């Protein structure tokens, strides 16, 4: 690869285990899990530092940062986005790219079936979901009732969902192992790279997680108010 090929990083913290990744030019180099502990999210910067050092780089070398937007672990996402925002503050020329986590998971399972549905943030019979055919979106992403998704998604359909969405057993539908919802940082990096090449860039102050729903406390408060 050219000596001046740009260094890029990916921050993937939507899942239970967070990861950081590095690439050079159009080549993915390596990733590293963020140590799992009660304060694992606070290990993001040291882990990124160690990963870059292992490959002879430092923070001043980063030209592009690809950040998984969720939905997923709110704390992990906020941690990664605060990190990305401040990297951009320190290096205004740094290119920030947000990567939808639904897309990451869909691209991890392209071979599972002709159609793949990814369902995240499943609550009260709804989920934030999208349906893909060979990686290209057909439905969503949107917050949608599970029944509605089942009715509209084409078959054969592989479902990626953290908890049993109750769709397994329906004709032509297979629920993949729950571990299938763990985002692969190499895929996050690849999608981020592709988005960056296509001109995708987000201003630092606009880079925010996909929360999808109001905080639980707000929902409860509103329910109590109606009661």
């Amino acid at each position, binding site marked *: 690869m050219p000596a001046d090929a740009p260094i890029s990083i990916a921050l993937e913290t939507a899942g239970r285990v967070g990861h950081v990744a590095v690439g050079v030019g159009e080549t993915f180099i390596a990733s590293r899990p963020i140590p799992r502990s009660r304060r694992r999210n606070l290990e993001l*910067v040291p882990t990124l530092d160690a990963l870059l050092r292992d490959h002879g780089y430092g923070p001043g070398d980063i030209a592009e940062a690809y950040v998984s937007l969720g939905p997923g672990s*709110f*704390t992990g996402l*906020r941690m990664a*986005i*605060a990190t990305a925002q401040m990297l951009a503050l320190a290096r205004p020329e740094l290119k920030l790219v947000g990567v939808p986590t639904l897309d990451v998971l869909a691209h991890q399972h392209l071979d599972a079936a002709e159609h793949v549905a990814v369902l995240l943030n499943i609550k009260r019979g709804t989920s934030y979901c999208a349906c893909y055919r060979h990686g290209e979106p057909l439905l969503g992403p949107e917050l949608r009732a599970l029944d509605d998704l089942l009715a509209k998604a084409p078959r054969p359909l592989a479902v990626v969902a953290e908890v049993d969405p109750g769709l397994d057993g329906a004709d032509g539908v297979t629920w993949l192992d729950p571990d299938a919802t763990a985002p692969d940082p190499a895929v996050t990096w690849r999608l981020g790279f592709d988005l960056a090449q296509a001109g995708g860039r987000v201003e630092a*102050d606009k880079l925010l997680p996909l929360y999808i729903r109001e905080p639980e406390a707000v929902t409860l408060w509103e329910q109590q108010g109606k009661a």
Partner: protein
Amino acid sequence: MPVILGLETSCDETAASVVADGMEVRSSVVSTQHDLHERYGGVVPEIASRAHLERLWPVVRAALDGAGVTLREIDAVAVGNRPGLVGSLIVGASAAKTLAWSLGVPLIGIDHVEAHLYAATLHPPHTAASTPSLGNPPPDITYPALGLVVSGGHTSLYDVASPLSMTLLGKTIDDAVGEAYDKAAVILDAGYPGGPNLDKLAQQGNPAAHKLPRPLLGPGSLDFSFSGLKTALLYATRGTPVGRGRQARFERSAADLTDAERADLAASFQQAVVDTVMTKLKRAVRHLSDAGRPPRGLIIGGGVSANSLLRQRAAALGDKLSLPVHIPPLALCVDNAAMIAGLAHAKLQAGRVDDLTLPVIATTAAGLGPPA
């Protein structure tokens, strides 16, 4: 003259500040979330965390621009990493780590409560009317001093040997004084945030109108308790309840009272709170003197140190005891990042810096740190 960027996100204020030489506040930007939490009558942690992330960039940017510095001129990055709401602390800590790492400068974690006791040391941010580098410099603080932190989350007394060394003498065993104000404001329909609104209402009332308790917790105790006083206010406002717990029914509500009656209740409550705090301060001075460590000054910090009656009475107490009283200007009483950056200067000078694994901690007992 080290220039330090401070970040503060421990509760519901997103703040950034640039402080030079530990005293000169070049900028102090505070974005409060009161509007987001008002309808809930208190801080909702998840809402706070979301808002911190949304406000982080513009607040830090404004602090740098306001100070007229670039990140290249920053010598260290400080962050309040304890105590506070974990989800909120994480946003500030993540940002501070990234900046320190990116800039190749020291990272310094700061105890938010200790920082409140540093706020009185700061030269307030300059205004058009003041000389930028001078402002209204506070008198130097002489140590050892007696420290009092009064805020929404903390009510504590400290034996302060230096800005970096303090020993806890007493603390609240239930509500913090600011929390008591917030609850009292709910009882009296005074709105949110309770402290400033109740203070304003109290100024129109008669502090002797109602005889409310002064909870002192026995002879010599330096701890605080405000839950009984809050209940006494509830009963004085609504009458004696019939039934218990959620089934309790009251004779009336604050809405049934005239404005003058509500003001009298607010004034009586405020008088009881401040009487209690003054008694504890006198006890603490006596305690330290008896222990052979008479304080040479009184330092007060925290959001409730903006309370008008508390400031008046503390000044009077200082005169009576011949102790200089150090209270920050109003802008530095609330949660802010100038106190974080200021105290970080003292830690930087002492070589007490942190690495990138700096944790966030929900609860701490200030005073457990190593001596200066």
